[in-house]
């Protein structure tokens, strides 16, 4: 059977067809559609028991997936690249425990930062944890890799990291599907203490991980997803192209690439193959989306008489995602004739929707803070980050999930007044609650706004883990009920909202204000679904 699938959907279908028992994830562009596809599949096939509910953050997702693997079943954990920083503790240690049922850690990188705050390259995490990394170059390969990766994971008894990028995650192609494999039976780890990472056991487990490295390297050299054709004659240049970048290189030569090419879609980098290649080429161009992960290593492997060129030497740009035009220019090929750049075009940045509750929150913040010229507003990650742009321009910082509360606290510790934090409902449960406890324990003089739209808005309206629980959570953590206020962010309530904000700023202790109104996008979607039912 053939299906037109996004890269993300091909990954999801591949996991389902490989006998998946559970997906664990927190939404994050460009990885969100993987879990959404599995949720849609489970709705249509209720007899298929696959866990698919969203998690509170990437760390809880990673740990739950590891627990499912411990029980002997195949698990998938998905996240965007910065989510890996949150999941890093269990991720790195999962290579020490090893796995029981197959475990794939799927991370979607975002070169060019289309929807992110950095372009960190997840392949470094794979090297750090000393496990195999896969990087598909097409939707079909993404699909095929899932069953391969589960088999690999179960044969090595290690998690497998799969890295994709925005361009593949969000591009559709026709994918040929295979027969569906049954799920593993329940078969928890028993009789060994490998998973109890006390130092004595961890030392033994780490030694075993190191012992398996030559085997992991051999699997890379022999991988069906890596390809290299050795040539008899010598060439001026060769190329190493990783994942998606291989497509751009192929696009430049419709008649076939006229020099040796090593395509890498499985890591660690196959060093023997690269040494062979260097014997045949005067120079090697390394073409990879993301950071110069391969380029740095290759420069270390090869003798100096083979010149390595790429992002580090400037032939390819150090920053941003690749495209066929960039690769063409690096190869010294002329572009097709094309029109001049347009004159009458300006940027059209995204904005908060008309009618969105966050708008009333920012309007209130700007009205009140006009009277406090030293005020600083610490923002967070979500739709409301757009409050940094015109017309509001209300934010002084946005760093990572949850940083609004903790940075406001640190700034208040240093003497900033007023220090205001603004965080969304889903971001608060993701990583804001622990910071709130720090602030409560010192009764820090900060005002925290949890702008609750009852959903995870920016990624398209997924369920939010704390919906209907925020007052209880805040009280449970120890927020003074007299300084825990709820308002409805509508223009007609502006007087009440600004008065509340002013009072809580003036209070010399910790306050939480919860403006609560449903996201207009999810509201409209529900209304449409209801109308369709009638």
């Amino acid at each position, binding site marked *: 059977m053939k299906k037109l699938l996004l890269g993300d959907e091909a990954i999801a279908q591949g996991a389902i067809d490989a006998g998946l028992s559970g997906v664990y994830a927190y939404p994050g562009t460009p990885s*969100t559609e993987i879990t959404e596809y599995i949720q849609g599949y489970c709705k249509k096939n209720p007899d298929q028991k696959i866990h698919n509910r969203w998690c509170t953050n990437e760390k809880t997702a990673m740990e739950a997936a590891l627990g499912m693997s411990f029980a002997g079943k195949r698990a998938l954990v998905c996240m965007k690249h910065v989510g890996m920083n949150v999941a890093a503790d269990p991720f790195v240690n999962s290579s020490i425990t090893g796995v029981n049922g197959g475990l794939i850690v799927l991370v979607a990188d975002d070169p060019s930062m289309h929807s992110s705050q950095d372009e960190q390259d997840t392949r470094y995490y794979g090297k750090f944890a000393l496990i195999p990394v896969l990087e598909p170059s097409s939707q079909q390969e993404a699909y095929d890799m899932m069953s391969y990766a589960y088999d690999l994971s179960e044969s090595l008894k290690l998690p497998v990291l799969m890295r994709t990028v925005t*361009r593949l995650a*969000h591009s559709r*192609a026709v994918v040929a599907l295979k027969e569906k494999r049954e799920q593993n039976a329940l078969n928890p780890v028993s009789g060994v203490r490998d998973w109890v990472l006390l130092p004595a056991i961890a030392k033994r487990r780490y030694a075993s991980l190191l012992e398996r490295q030559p085997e992991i390297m051999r699997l890379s050299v022999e991988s069906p997803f890596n390809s290299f054709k050795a040539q008899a004659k010598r060439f001026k240049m060769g190329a190493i192209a990783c994942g998606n970048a291989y*497509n751009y290189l192929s696009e430049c030569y419709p008649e076939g690439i006229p020099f040796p090419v090593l395509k890498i879609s499985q890591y660690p980098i196959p060093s023997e193959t690269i040494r062979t290649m260097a014997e045949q080429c005067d120079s090697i161009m390394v073409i990879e989306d993301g950071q110069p992960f391969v380029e740095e290593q290759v420069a270390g492997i090869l003798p100096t008489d083979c010149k390595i060129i790429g992002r580090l030497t400037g032939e390819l740009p150090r920053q941003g995602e690749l495209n066929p035009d960039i690769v063409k220019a690096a190869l010294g090929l002329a572009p097709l004739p094309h*029109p001049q750049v347009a004159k009458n*075009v300006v940027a059209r*940045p995204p904005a908060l929707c008309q009618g969105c509750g966050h708008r009333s929150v920012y309007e209130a913040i700007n009205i009140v803070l006009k009277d406090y010229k030293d005020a600083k507003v610490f923002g967070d990650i979500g739709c409301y980050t757009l409050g940094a742009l015109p017309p509001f321009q209300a934010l002084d910082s946005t760093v990572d999930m949850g940083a609004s509360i903790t940075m406001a606290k640190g700034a208040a510790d240093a003497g900033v007044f007023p220090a205001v934090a603004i965080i969304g409902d889903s971001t608060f449960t993701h990583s804001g609650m622990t910071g709130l406890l720090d602030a409560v324990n010192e009764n820090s003089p900060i005002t925290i706004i949890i702008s609750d739209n009852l959903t995870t808005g920016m990624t398209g309206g997924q369920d939010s883990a704390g919906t209907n629980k925020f007052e209880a959570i805040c009280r449970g953590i120890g927020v003074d009920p007299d300084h825990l206020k709820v308002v409805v962010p509508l223009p007609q309530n502006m007087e009440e909202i600004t008065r509340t904000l002013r009072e809580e700023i003036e209070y010399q202790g910790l306050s939480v204000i919860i403006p609560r109104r449903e996201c207009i996008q999810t509201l409209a979607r529900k209304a449409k679904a209801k109308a369709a039912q009638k």
Partner: protein
Amino acid sequence: MKTDIILAGVGGQGILSIATVIGQAALEEDLYIKQAEVHGMSQRGGDVQSNLRISDQPIASDLISLGQADIIIAMEPMEALRYKQYLSKDGWVITSSNPFVNIGNYPDQNAIIAELKELGNVILIDTDELGKENKMPKAVNMILLGAASKALKSISFDKLCQSVRTIFGAKGDAIVDMNIKALEIGRDCK
């Protein structure tokens, strides 16, 4: 035969339904397809585009190169112009002439239209007027696709109609008929 299409608009205008209709038709014709989309932050009222490539041969890149696009279909004129550099020598631009103004510094509309007309093969459609006249304000994207059908050489007009029937079938005959009529209205635009 290969056809490279850039679909352009503003987040929420519905460019992806155009891609879905072409994609479904291409799938039924057993053609190769690559369709890169924009998801995420830009969908909140920012500029969005989709690179749609269909061919009877395997396609390497998900992205279209400069000077390679056979067709640009745009929901509004400045977004059509944004991808001007990607247009091939004999390429076509099919765009609504009605601007979507959600920014303060939107350029002079006459200057945009004049620059578009310099490109040669351009079909500008007053979709607001046509939509109102034919009582189909929500089928603007299908009017534009109908107008693009002449340049869309690898897929016949009948196949596009068939694809509309497949995709909108579940929503009832009235919706199917309206979208097919929109395709026909577009096809007859000059």
